[in-house]
């Protein structure tokens, strides 16, 4: 044991390089079976917290949500089985249809715009220029900022009468926009703010993808006379498709969960124009204590995300190029 102790403390320093050499040096006749069992036992021990977490906080709750969705339950009296009543109510619920439409609207507009903008900016930042890391840090900053603070900030900037955005627009002759106050502009306002906030994250993801593309491909193409747009279309985009796929899935999933912005900035209004699915789940579950209906809504959200992800994964073979 003392040799092992000594060896391990040394190994911490030597670690990455020594690998194979050390193994040959220390090789002893393997005691196959028992060692394997011991290692597996340790592995399960290491994973015990995760197994419990899976049971109590991940898979358990998802299954529970399914079960609760077949009941009415206000937490005060025992749950009552109602079969598919919650789901039937859901598809007849005007608010649900509005929330679904708003959430899809938010996603369909914000996800492609965010990805396109991020891709373009990342391609620019991928050039070997001085000070690029500063830009990276600046664009990334809103990602780390508190969503509550940022929502308050944008609500203030969107104020029709004293807001800085309307002031800036007035300088170029654009009349006052009502932003969050007008049902037609409320959702676009939320989308604009969300793009601003999540751009940096996607830029950094794309930047990582771009940096893995071999530089000599570009040099060869440039000498062949390909312009920068051609190079972007013929080299960058195809080789970046795995990253675009990944970023797209992440963006889709997170945009279907949009809630904080609308909760802080518009409370779902005006006239339900920014009511989203998660907002509706929150209201039903924690304002009206309708656990059954809230669970049905959340299970619908889950099923929708699941189906969309599966479709994405299926479709990827058509357009994602893995090197």
């Amino acid at each position, binding site marked *: 044991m003392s040799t092992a102790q000594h060896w*391990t403390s040394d190994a911490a320093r030597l670690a990455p390089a020594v690998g194979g050499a050390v193994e040959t040096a220390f090789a002893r006749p393997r005691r196959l079976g028992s060692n394997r069992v011991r290692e597996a036992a340790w592995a399960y021990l290491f994973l015990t917290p995760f197994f419990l977490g*899976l049971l109590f906080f991940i898979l358990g709750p998802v299954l529970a949500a399914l079960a609760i969705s077949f009941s009415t339950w206000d937490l005060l009296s025992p749950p009552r089985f109602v079969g598919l009543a919650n789901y039937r109510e859901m598809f007849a619920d005007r608010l649900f249809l509005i929330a679904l439409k708003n959430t899809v609207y938010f996603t369909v507009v914000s996800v492609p715009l965010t990805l396109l903008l991020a891709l373009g900016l990342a391609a620019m930042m991928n050039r070997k220029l001085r000070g690029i890391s500063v830009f990276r840090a600046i664009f990334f900053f809103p990602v780390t900022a508190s969503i509550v603070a940022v929502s308050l900030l944008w609500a203030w900037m969107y104020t029709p009468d004293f807001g800085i955005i309307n002031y800036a627009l007035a300088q170029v002759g654009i009349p006052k926009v009502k932003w969050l106050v007008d049902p037609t502009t409320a959702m676009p306002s939320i989308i604009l703010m969300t793009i601003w906030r999540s751009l940096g994250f996607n830029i950094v993801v794309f930047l990582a993808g771009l940096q893995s593309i071999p530089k000599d491909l570009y040099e060869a193409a440039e000498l062949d006379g390909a312009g920068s747009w051609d190079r972007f279309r013929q080299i960058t985009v195809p080789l970046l498709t795995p990253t675009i796929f990944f970023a797209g899935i992440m963006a889709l999933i997170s945009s279907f969960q949009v809630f904080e912005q609308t909760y802080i900035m518009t409370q779902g209004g005006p006239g339900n124009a920014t009511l989203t699915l998660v907002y509706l789940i929150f209201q039903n579950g924690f304002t009206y204590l309708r656990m059954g209906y*809230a669970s049905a809504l959340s299970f619908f959200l889950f099923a929708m995300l699941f189906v969309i992800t599966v479709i994405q994964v299926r479709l990827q073979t058509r357009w994602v190029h893995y090197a």
Partner: protein
Amino acid sequence: MRNPGADMNSIISRRRLGDRLTYAVLVAGGLLMIFPFLWMLTTSFKDMGEVRMWPPTLFPRHLDLTNYRDIWHEYPMAQFLWNGFVIASLSTLGTLISCSLAGFALAQLNFPGRALLFLVVLCTILLPYQVRMVPIFIEMATLGWIDSFKPLIVPAFFGSAYGIFLMRQFFLGIPRDLKEAAILDGASPFAVFWQIFLPLSKPALTALGIVSFVTSWNDLLAPMIFITTFEKMPIALALSFFKGQGEALWPWLMAASVISMLPLMVVYLAAQRWFIEGLTFTGLKQ
């Protein structure tokens, strides 16, 4: 005949133009990113009269801290910050412990069901909190943990899929021979983990720690569900309540927002690399 020299020149001049264009776009974009925060800061110094001025003043007329002082006196701001800090640091501690253990097992140990379990981890990354929150709320209510920090801290000790994935990817990068050799020499897998792998994984732990702290500090939905007493609220949740206290108090709201962002902003300036690497880790490894 093609003249290679002329080609090179045209390529270089095209590049210069491209560089200038790139800088122009990046500077403009960077200003759009940073200006709102400057506007937040500027507004936080103004008084109620000044925020209603048209045209707006770009810089406050007086640089006084009245709003900050008033907020600090009116609300238990120090308490909110402390609550946020306690919740974020303890849940970060839990995440680091549980995720490094599970990540190590998935990357370095052999056991039946390993591939399947990793698939489960990947799938649970796609499973949003919102889908699980009703049953988790009921669990917490059953335990009598509502209106305490426990629902916001304890689950972290049982691992997060994202954190496990991050640690597993990191541990995969360390040669397995290292572990095999130590184990053949009689060290237990725990000793290998604790004495070899943990010291080597400081970069991954830092990145995961920052992600976990930032996420918890900024989280709104979970605290909204579980915390009801004003004095127990973490800063992000408390901030969300200020808006209801009078729509037009923008200087106050902005001052409170600055206070809520300041601690993380300082850390970001010092360690932005870790923020960026941690928060986009899964993207980097795809």
